[in-house]
């Protein structure tokens, strides 16, 4: 998608029109009266070996996208094709079989580790589930993984609370790597860590990507870290993608007003520059995803909103080569982008093949 090579490699992950609604039941008979539209029609591709950054405000649906991708939720609509199989429709056993190729690193390293299991048990759990190795072989693999993520082998018997945050996150990563996945969703793997440890984890992820050719979906709200690690970045707002651009282009010149505000809010670790920076401070609170505004999701807070925004929902469209934006400000420039059409075609094809 980035470079138009003559014979395009198929993307490893294809997401089309992903929707994840959490139903709201009310009333005497528990009637279904509404939905929290946590993710409301999201489409993107991830190439093998690529890192896609996913950024956005808290509660905009980033984690939900990540979890829906791995079918940790039963998704409401759309499809997710990973390495040629549609994850969204697999039966339980087939899904279990498909698990090894896609893994997840969780937001909160403390919460995502069972406090009553030892490190060896935690890292070995996927092996228990998916292999019939004997315990020696499993242990050998566990040690191997611990080496890979830089954990001392002596720690094998320790419990999660005995580790620092960075180490815990490494445990989570080792667990994700255990089955040689091709694709890993990293859900804010560094949010809970302090700076120096953040750096360790990010470096580790990059090293592993180089070594094992992994593909990442990197969810974060730390924009500087995303800039460091991601190849392309998707900016989400209230369950939808506002902008999807190559990293450098985005950071140099964000197109969507929300992306712009977001970038301007990042604190600058240089006192001289920091004081000089002009921030765009967004006003108001994020609307409830159960009741998103009519028209553009962002229109209630957008400094540049105009009449059309409050009426019509802008679609994600390619406005510059490789850059997709869902904003009326750019709608005339890319009335019907070629990629949009090809996307639509692809969707149809999949509809046929299934």
């Amino acid at each position, binding site marked *: 998608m980035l470079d138009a090579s003559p014979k395009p490699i198929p993307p490893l992950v294809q997401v089309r029109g992903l929707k994840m609604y959490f139903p709201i039941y009310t009333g005497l008979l528990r009637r279904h009266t509404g939905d929290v539209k946590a993710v409301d029609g999201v489409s993107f591709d991830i190439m093998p070996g690529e890192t896609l950054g996913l950024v956005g405000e808290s509660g905009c649906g980033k984690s939900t996208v990540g*979890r829906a991708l791995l079918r*940790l939720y039963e998704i409401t609509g759309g499809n997710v094709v990973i390495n040629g199989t549609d994850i969204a429709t697999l039966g339980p056993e087939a899904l279990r079989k498909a698990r090894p190729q896609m893994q997840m690193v969780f*937001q909160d390293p403390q*919460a995502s580790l*069972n*406090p009553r299991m030892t490190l060896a048990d935690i890292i070995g759990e*996927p092996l228990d589930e998916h292999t019939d190795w004997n315990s020696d072989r499993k242990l050998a693999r566990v040690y191997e993984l611990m080496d890979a993520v830089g954990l001392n082998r002596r720690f094998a018997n320790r419990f999660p*609370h005995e580790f620092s945050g960075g180490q815990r996150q490494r445990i989570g990563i080792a667990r994700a790597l255990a089955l040689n996945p091709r694709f890993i969703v990293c859900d804010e793997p560094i949010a809970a860590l302090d700076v120096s440890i953040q750096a360790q984890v990010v470096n580790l992820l990059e090293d592993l990507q180089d070594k094992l050719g992994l593909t990442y979906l990197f969810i974060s709200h730390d924009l500087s870290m995303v800039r460091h690690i991601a190849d392309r970045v998707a900016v989400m707002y209230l369950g939808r993608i506002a902008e999807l651009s190559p990293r450098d282009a985005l950071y140099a010149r964000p197109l969507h007003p929300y992306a712009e505000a977001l970038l301007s809010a990042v604190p600058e670790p240089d006192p001289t520059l920091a004081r000089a920076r002009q921030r765009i401070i967004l006003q108001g609170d994020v609307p409830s995803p159960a009741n998103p505004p009519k028209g553009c999701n962002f229109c209630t807070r957008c400094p540049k909103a105009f009449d059309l925004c409050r009426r019509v929902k802008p679609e994600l469209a390619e406005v510059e080569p490789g850059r997709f934006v869902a904003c009326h400000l750019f709608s005339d420039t890319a009335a019907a982008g070629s990629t949009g059409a090809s996307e639509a075609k692809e969707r149809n094809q999949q509809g046929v093949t299934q």
Partner: protein
Amino acid sequence: MTDISHIEKPRSQWADVWSQFKTHKGAVAGLTVFVTLILFVTIGPFIWTVDPTYINPNAAEMIRTRNKPPSWQFPLGTDQLGRDMLARMMKGGQVSIAVGLVAMAISILLGTLVGVMAGYFKRLDGPLMRLTDLFLALPLLPLLLVMVMLFRDPLARAMGPEAGTFLLIVFAIGVTSWMQAARIVRGDVLALKEREFVLAARSIGTPSRRMILRHILPNVVSPIMVSATLGIASAIITESALSFLGLGFPPDFPTWGRLLFDGVDYIQQYPERVMWPGIAISLTVLSVNYIGDGLRDALDPRIRGR
């Protein structure tokens, strides 16, 4: 890192638990008392070899040895039929402790099972909780009577009268006392289910069965421990109530609960007769309580090692 030989293999978790347990003063004291009680009731009869149901067939002799206060011949005295109280306490303890432990185990097992199922599987929640209500509402006595009527003879035939009765009693007590535990466990499981490590396990492809065994259960031990401690006490007492209803062991079979109950009739003349079983039951409950405290701490790796 190629040389793994010097790195110890993952240790058994129980070694850790034990080493932590040892540092808990109350727990160690409790364990000591409990082990002493166990030794008293198991090894004791080999040292003090008097038959607990022996009644002197010679009437004149029997009359003389009735209702004796503690002496060298009868360290804890004798009862109204001249049976040796020490021997009865030992024999009774075997049953009471066994009933207490096994019945508690059954009730905890059931309670945990129902609680976990209800908490973990949304679809089962309603039916199982209504079932719990039902059991809470059922009149216990008819229920027990029905159980005894249906199962006493078949069990006795299959396993011999004592083992059969034992099984029936512990089962009866277990089946009628799991509701509290189920409620508590369910509440905890509901909260646990939302924890991220459960999601993490799901992402690995852990099926529900192992999810429950590996991730849910170990994290609800603490409330289970509390119910277990309280459960032993009530099981021991309930056993005596059962035998009082004729649902329990053969009537000449001593248990602490029954010794206590029988002793109450003689409380004015021979207060020691209620004291022995009373003290024994209280000691058991207290020691188990402290063991439970210690175990709960020891099982929690976050407290361990601190």
